[in-house]
């Protein structure tokens, strides 16, 4: 290691120590990547999502430099670029729970050092908009920390600008007691889009929406962990997607109730056309002793083509008594009577199909926007 000539001995030691720490972190992420299984369709957490078609490409990403543009609008001073040297943030990422993507998290840690941390200590007057875009491969991290009692609205957008664009985002969202957060993630235009989101609700109200469009392959993992109960503690997870062509959307969710007396709700809806595939695997986990939990999970799909495929695997894992938990799944073609009604008013077929499909998805987006925030 070369040190600048005017550097004191103490400074040189500190720099060397930081360099060593970083190298150690990189080695650890490499080990993690090597030890964990790459996505494989025989793995329960990856079946149906056609991971075998992407495993080799994902392994290549390990040595591909992360390259993209990050922009944040209307955030004031609360936005801080993520730095490779920030040990706290790296540590947070290392501890993120995944639903089968442990190898990929190792990959992401190797690329660590892009994205934004948002420390929100005042109500947002307008939504903060966070944009990540790339024409190659980008691996940003987002940290959102909403202070107690603060109301915030955040829109995160991911845009792929080239046919082979790939983006792999990790998102850590902390909602403090009494805080209210409405946060969305919209991605479009990627050959491969991956996201691992961890929401930690410490006694606030959080509403989360994902919308993916025009991605050839999307893998979404969303884990919501609920650590506090009481009046006004609520976690809502929504998703609304329209899939066409041969797109694959592979969504995995977990609602983790660590304590009793809290409510969570999930509604994931997809309209699946052509030969596209939608996978939903959801789980509600209620920890031992988390009594009086009120949790709901629903996956609804509309099929527009005989070649479209849906795999829906809702699940419950309840280790407490006295809980109210339910899950549901329904997949069906478009209601012919609804379509006929629109056609009978002179609306052309393509437009009628579009309206009915959008109406179907609007159930999820409307609930997201109806969630209480600062407007």
């Amino acid at each position: 290691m070369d040190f600048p000539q005017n550097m004191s001995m103490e400074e040189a030691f500190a720099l060397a120590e930081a360099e060593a720490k970083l190298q150690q972190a990189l080695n650890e992420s490499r080990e993690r990547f090597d030890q964990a299984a790459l996505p494989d369709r025989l793995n329960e957490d990856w079946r149906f999502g056609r991971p075998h078609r992407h495993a080799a490409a994902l392994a290549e990403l390990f040595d591909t430099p992360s390259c993209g543009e990050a922009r944040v609008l209307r955030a004031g001073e609360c936005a801080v670029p993520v730095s490779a040297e920030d040990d706290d943030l790296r540590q947070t990422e290392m501890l993120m729970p995944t639903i089968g993507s442990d190898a990929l998290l190792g990959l992401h840690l190797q690329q660590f050092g892009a994205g934004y941390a948002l420390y929100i200590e005042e109500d947002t007057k307008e939504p903060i908009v966070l944009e990540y875009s790339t024409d190659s491969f980008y691996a940003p991290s987002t940290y959102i920390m909403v202070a107690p009692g603060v109301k915030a609205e955040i829109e995160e957008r991911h845009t792929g600008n080239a046919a082979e664009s790939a983006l792999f985002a990790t998102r850590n969202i902390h909602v403090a007691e009494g805080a209210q957060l409405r946060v969305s993630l919209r991605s479009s235009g990627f050959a491969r889009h991956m996201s691992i989101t961890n929401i930690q609700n410490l006694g606030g109200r959080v509403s989360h929406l994902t919308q993916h469009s025009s991605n050839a392959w999307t893998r979404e993992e969303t884990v919501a962990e609920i650590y506090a109960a009481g009046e006004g503690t609520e976690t809502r997870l929504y998703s609304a997607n329209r899939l066409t062509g041969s797109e694959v959307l592979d969504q995995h969710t977990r609602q983790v109730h660590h304590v009793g007396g809290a409510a969570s709700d999930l509604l994931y809806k997809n309209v699946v056309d052509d030969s596209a595939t939608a996978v939903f695997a959801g789980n509600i986990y209620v920890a031992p002793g988390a009594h009086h939990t009120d949790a709901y999970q629903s996956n609804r799909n509309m099929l527009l083509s005989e070649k479209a495929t849906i795999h829906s695997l809702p699940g419950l894992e309840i280790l407490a008594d006295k809980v109210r938990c339910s899950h549901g799944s329904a997949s069906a073609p478009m209601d012919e009577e609804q379509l006929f009604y629109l056609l009978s008013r002179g609306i052309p077929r393509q437009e009628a199909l579009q309206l009915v499909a959008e109406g179907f998805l609007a159930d999820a987006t409307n609930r997201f926007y109806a969630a209480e925030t600062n407007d």
Partner: protein
Amino acid sequence: MSLIIRNLHARVKDGAEILNGINLEIPKGEVHAIMGPNGSGKSTLSKVLCGHPAYEITAGSVEMDGQDLLSMSVDERSRAGLFLAFQYPVEVPGVSNANFLRAALEARLPKGEEINVVDFYKQLRGRMKELGMDTKFTARAVNEGFSGGEKKRNDVLQMMMLEPTYAILDETDSGLDVDALRVVSDGVNAMRAPFRSFMVITHYKRLLDYIRPDVVHVLYKGKIVRTGGFELVDYIEAHGFDFVRNEEE
């Protein structure tokens, strides 16, 4: 110019024949009532005319102002001037009433043209007021969570906005209380014009007391078996449909 139905036979796809040779002509400017016992094919006739995919035509023809109606798609029939107020209006979740009507009106404009939004809302609110509807219904999803009466009013609202040439009202009176029946009938009557016709399907005289028909037909087992004036309505009200059954069996 008129709606002319000739020897129309239709059945539920792969099922029994329901319409067995209907002959009917409704000239412009006239209101024709279609009455008949349950299962006689009244609703089937209305759906077949609009092109419902559950039915197939096995014989006959329908001409609307000289155009071959049966060769047109469902949406083309509507844009050509045909309208059906449904017996059971359909709920369309997530699609607001206003957007739905805008899409229907814009479909009638030349390609690329859009309706004037201010004029549209002005007209929509005016029509809603005439029908005694709360303007909050503009933002609500089409018929979703509406009561039976509200759905029927909403269908009549669509008719008023789309201004069809030939309107079919399929049991529009069912589910309406006396006051709502009057309001809806007033709306229909206000639309009566020399360039517009109505086919009013009903079981009961009470609707026809408000919307006075020019001609009354009785449909039985998929055929028009009687045609007359208002005296036929009075006779059915007094004696039921047994006379038709007795004559036809």
